[in-house]
């Protein structure tokens, strides 16, 4: 076993009001669906209501005090995000609705401008639909092709195969996840970026599953674009982040048109605002961006190294206990260093939806289905899996209850 982590789960749990509610039958909530969305600490919830109660105002335009306070709070979060991923400047941070929108922004404003008929975009079989469909749409529009890097049986990609694929002269863009939302696999994105840049191909990283769980440094990775979401890291829904290198953002046309993204508007033409405002048309999600700031503070206080350490410990423990269960199939890399705190599995021939219903009786919130990754499901030759995913407030005691529940499901289905 790894050394005990510096994360005090019991103390953390006190900060999350929802973890004190009960599920039908009087069970404590055991929330193991963190790869879908995470719960919110009181500081996040309070920062949102504080905004509405004390300084609600539109931003960037008015000069009254409320607007000044709201603008300051909103822009302060952009600074926090820039610092979180070590962007050179906050100008390289664009707020969107979610990671999906961030990827679509690059598909529209970069890929759509640069792809022609014979070109190609390369992704992997591990991707979430949000990193597949935008590329299908844009390659379909211009008649370009979409190619996939395969995934091995243990959920890893082959870097040699990648190194070969990127030498295709038609390749114009690579887009890959840093961490699989199904298998937890951590992809070698730094190496992939280096290889892509050797042939002058830009790379986008879908970091929706990685940024919440580990230290991610865009300058160290040297990626050109990165997308992630606030709600998967203790923040509110409705806030996505796009990081892009300044030289790309400057050359890209706007995403949608409207207020706030303009410098001057005349009857027939408009000059666009500076970065990053050019990409943020209309009133943004001010309250939730401010809430996201509180989430970043909370995670920074815990420390990303401690978070990763805690998650590796709980994942290792869960893998060990789950492997004791007869008839279980666990997907993804067996080594905890190569994966995040996500475990996909199947138990005998019990359908994941049946398993999720049974686990719900134990108060366990677990995901079942294709996890928006049907390409990967086809690769694994399963129609669905069950998935548990952990975060800072999950404990080994909860894993023990999970194991009891799985054993109980086995008995019920006569396995």
């Amino acid at each position, binding site marked *: 076993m790894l050394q005990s982590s510096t994360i005090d789960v019991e103390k953390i749990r006190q900060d999350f009001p929802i973890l004190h509610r009960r599920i039908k039958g009087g069970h404590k909530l055991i929330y193991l669906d963190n790869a879908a969305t995470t719960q919110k600490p009181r500081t996040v919830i309070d920062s949102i209501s504080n905004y509405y109660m004390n300084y609600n105002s539109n931003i960037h335009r008015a000069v009254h005090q409320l607007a000044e306070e709201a603008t300051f709070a909103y822009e302060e979060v952009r600074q926090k995000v820039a610092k979180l991923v070590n962007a050179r400047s906050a100008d390289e941070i664009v707020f969107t609705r979610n990671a999906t929108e961030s990827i679509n922004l690059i598909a529209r404003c970069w890929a759509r401008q640069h792809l022609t008929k014979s070109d190609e975009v390369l992704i992997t079989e591990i991707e979430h639909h949000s990193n597949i469909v935008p590329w299908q749409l844009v390659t379909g529009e211009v008649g370009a092709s979409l190619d996939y890097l395969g995934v091995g049986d243990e959920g890893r990609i082959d870097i040699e195969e990648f190194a070969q694929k990127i030498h295709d002269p038609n390749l114009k863009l690579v887009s890959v996840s840093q961490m699989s939302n199904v298998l937890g696999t951590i992809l070698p994105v730094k190496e992939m970026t280096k290889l892509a840049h050797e042939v002058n191909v830009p790379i986008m990283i879908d970091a929706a599953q990685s940024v919440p769980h580990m230290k991610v440094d865009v300058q160290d990775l040297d990626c050109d674009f990165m997308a992630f979401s606030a709600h998967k890291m203790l923040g509110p829904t409705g806030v996505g982040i796009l990081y892009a290198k300044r030289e790309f953002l400057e050359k890209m046309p706007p995403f949608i048109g409207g207020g706030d993204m303009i410098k001057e508007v005349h009857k027939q033409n408009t000059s666009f605002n500076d970065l990053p405002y050019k990409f943020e048309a209309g009133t943004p999600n001010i309250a939730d961006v401010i809430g996201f700031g509180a989430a970043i503070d909370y995670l920074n206080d815990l420390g990303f190294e401690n978070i990763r350490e805690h998650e590796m410990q709980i994942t290792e423990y869960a893998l060990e206990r789950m492997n004791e269960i007869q008839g279980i199939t666990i997907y993804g890399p067996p080594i905890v260093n190569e994966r995040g705190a996500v475990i996909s599995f199947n138990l005998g021939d*019990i359908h994941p939806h*049946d398993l999720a*219903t049974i686990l*719900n009786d134990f108060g366990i919130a677990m995901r079942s*289905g294709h996890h928006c990754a049907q390409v990967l499901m086809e690769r694994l030759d399963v129609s669905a899996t069950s998935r548990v995913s952990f975060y800072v407030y999950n404990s080994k005691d909860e894993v023990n209850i999970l194991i009891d529940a799985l054993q109980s499901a086995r008995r019920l289905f006569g396995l």
Partner: protein
Amino acid sequence: MSEDIYREIILDHYRNPRNKGRISDADVSFHDSNPLCGDEIDIHLKVEDNIVKDIKFEGRGCAISQASASMLTEMVMNKPLTSVKELGKDDILENIGLVNLGPARIKCALLSLKVLKMSMVEYYASKDPESAQEIREGSRLY
């Protein structure tokens, strides 16, 4: 709770589905799936004198979707299409004994009836477009 759902009869139909397979000379076949769950059902129908002469299903998915399909085939076998047309959500839930199924799982239980109704829509499409339209409207069960 789940002991109530996964009663002997559901597990029995799941493990030993009735009328599972194809009909080589089926008059009509229809396929549909639950996009969220991935449950899949195909219904094959043989009709004679407006009576369900034979019905078979194929599919994969959770115990509730597959058991419900199995039980539905027994329910409508040799019944006139006019009475099958009238079947609704509550008939199915009563038939499988799960009247309190939550909103997430109710789609699993109703998928097979939806597919059966859509196969009847196909069956009537050229013969009786008016009935086809009526059944199509009745197929929106969730």
